[in-house]
């Protein structure tokens, strides 16, 4: 899941400074799950914006809407009639949603309310942790299901570096060493031997931006 967090309020205020009519658009998928950009947060942000602008004597009209996904044009189309009533849309979706609206609604100005952080995993109530770097060349099959690319600050692929102290990373004593964790997991799985295999050089070309993924291309590949 994509984890995003609300931008600092001051930044949002600056962004919308000159806007008089704003549509705050929540997203009902990932950002709802990580409790930062769903319907409840839309209500709260809109209340905050109104109050802050009132205080400045510069009133703002705020519309509130939440759609299931902002990363598909069909969902955006469903509310296209709303857009002309506003100066801008303040999207509470991840960067994909913001750009989706921008792409499909050419004449609508979209502003991001969120900072998109990472692909994450639930880490207990109200907590998420980055877990996948979307490197495009997954090695999890060789590392006991623990990603060295994401979990190791250096992203190294073959064993711990010299900075490992008592299982913790030199970057911070709060960060467990990814490779110590991989070692322990492989031991639990009885597959320590496999760690002797070299992962080899990683194909970083898969990470070349902008990434593209097409089902059709794959089918073509199979045929050829």
């Amino acid at each position: 899941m994509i984890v995003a967090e609300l931008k600092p309020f001051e930044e949002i205020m600056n962004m919308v400074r000159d806007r008089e009519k704003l549509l705050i658009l929540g997203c009902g998928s990932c950002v709802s799950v990580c409790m930062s950009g769903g319907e409840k947060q839309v209500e709260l942000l809109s209340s905050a914006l109104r109050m802050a602008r009132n205080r400045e004597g510069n009133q703002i009209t705020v519309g509130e809407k939440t759609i299931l996904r902002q990363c598909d044009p069909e969902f955006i189309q469903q509310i296209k009639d709303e857009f002309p009533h506003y100066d801008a849309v303040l999207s509470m979706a991840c960067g994909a949603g913001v750009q989706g609206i921008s792409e499909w609604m050419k004449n609508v100005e979209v502003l991001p309310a969120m900072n998109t952080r990472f692909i994450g995993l639930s880490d207990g109530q109200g907590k998420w942790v980055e877990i996948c770097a979307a490197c495009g060349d997954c090695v999890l099959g060789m590392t006991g299901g623990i990603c060295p690319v994401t979990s190791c600050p250096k992203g190294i692929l073959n064993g711990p570096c010299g900075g490992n102290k008592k299982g913790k990373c030199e970057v911070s004593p709060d960060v467990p060493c990814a490779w110590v964790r991989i070692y322990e997991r492989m031991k639990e799985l009885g597959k320590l031997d496999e760690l002797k295999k070299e992962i080899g050089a990683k194909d970083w070309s898969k990470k070349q931006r902008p990434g593209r993924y097409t089902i059709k291309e794959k089918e073509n590949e199979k045929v050829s």
Partner: protein
Amino acid sequence: MGDMTIVFVPPCQAACPINTDVRGYVSALARGDAEEAIRIIRRVNPLPSVCGRICTRLCETACRRAQVDAPVAIRALKRYASDHTKHLTFTQKPLNSYSERIAIIGSGPSGLTAAYDLALLGYKVTIFEAQHVLGGLLSEGIPRYRLPKEVVQREIEDILSLGIEVRTGVSLGKDFTIEGLLKDYQAVFIAVGSQKSLHPKCKGDNLPGILSGVEFLKQTDRGNTSFLGENVLVIGGGHTAVDAARTCVRLGCPDVTVVYRRTLDEMPAGREEVEQAELEGVKFIYLASPVEFAGEEKVQRVKFVRMELGEPDPSGRRRPVPVKDSEFDLEADAVILAIGYIPDVEDLKQDGLKVDRKGTIIVKDDTGITDMKGVFAAGDVVTGPMSVIEAMASGRKAAGAIHRYFRSIPDKWVDNRVSLRSLDEPLVSLIHKSERWQMPVLPVEKRKSTFDEVDLGYEREQACREALRCLNCGAGASVDSHCATCLNCLRICPFGIPVLGKETAEIDISQCQACGICAAECPASAIHLSNEGKDDLRQEVEQVMDRARQETPEIAVIGYYCRYHDPLGPPLDNDEIYWIARCCTGRLKESQIIYPFEIGADGVIVSLCLSDECRFRQGSYWVTEHMKRAGRVLKETGIGEDRLSVISDEEDFTGFREKLETMGINPLRKGKKVGA
């Protein structure tokens, strides 16, 4: 029944023969709103003061609070609602006007309810009553120390005010016949009750000094109170037996003994009544049955045989069987028999109605249709002796049947109510215990010499606190299709009720405790509380801010408090605080905490509960969390996080007030009047 829609209702409501919205009126009383409570009760019940005193309260037997400690004292709450709204008049107007005339024979609870329903539907109703006073056993039979006559008469007058005609002192068979009635009336409803006393089949049962319980109580109610003697034996275990015994005490009999053939557990009168009788000096002998009445010219002795409980009989109660050679004698100046009643149907038989072996009228089904066209029957005359509330329900069903008969409406009334299932065991242990409020009663000494009402009724505080014991079954949370399946509710519910369904979170309404914490926390606003609408709080805030604008205090502070923590009202009396109650402050969302500032409040406080007293275990934790988040927003927007505070006493508020003083008024109101 195939495509019948099922309606899930709280167990109390499902158990109520007239489908009273018990949860609805109890929760109104929890808010201190007796007027709303009585309105809810009166929607289905034209005899609330009567039922508030003598209902057999099937609702309390079903109440799920009993799984935790003791059932909610629902009957006492109903009485509170009716006693404290006497000043209100409930004039209802018939919905229609039909030409058909209906004769109702008998004015007990069944006849009265049918008369009320039919008159309300728009029919012309005439009640025929053999006695000179209306009400059946309510007026003559149930002693006034349990049911004061003026209470009965007041409610009967309310019913009659719908335009119902009354003929008293006329009895079926003597003064009129069904056939005769059918000439003037297009339908006849027979609800003559079941008052013929059964006698034990033993020697000497016709000796003078042996009385029927109902007859004795009737005579007492009519003022014929002759002294029965020093020593009275009452035989039986129902309400009539205990009523007769307690009446004897009041008439000055020093030695009154009830003899019942089973044990206290099987006694239809109920434990509470027996306890009260014992306090008044009535003695109880269980597991004994009379075999012979003896005496010169009048009864002087009764021979009993000891009984023991054998195999269960068809009613499910264990059948008492005599113990060999266990006879014993008891002295008696008088004996009151209260072992059972059957309808007196001789005259009905003559009119051509079919009667079964038990002596009750045979009807087609529970809507009371007899095989005589236009003639309906219900209540005790059909079922044998039942409770007041069941008699009322039977009258209601018959009224419905009569209406359908006239208007040619084919479909029959079906009971589509399904009770929410009982609380799961692990949940029971998590629910806060709370003792049931005992009904205040008249001192025993005073009871022995007067017929004053024994139960005194709750005071406001007792009613409020007792009403708050209600678990609000079925008034909890439900998840709509906007659920993002974030599973936050699963992780935060203090009772562990939400589960991951096929696609969304699911909350079992039968187990949810309605704290509202999940709804406040749901990021998709997909959780709804059936006891609080989405905009309810917003509207309440607007209302109190309107008040503030009129009263123009120097500053206006919105105060939220928990009704469970402070049942009698706001925790602090202060002209500057505008209080709003919630059943748990843990359900307050950040946006709801902030909203008052948008419309001009200068501060918001939440009265903090002690966390170990929280009915919902974690309410105080969550309100503190939400306050912190709301504080952050206030800081960022420049309104000031210090305008928000959790307070636990007056001192806290003084401190908060001083802080507000230095901050000045809410910048959103710019020096103008409050909220402007």
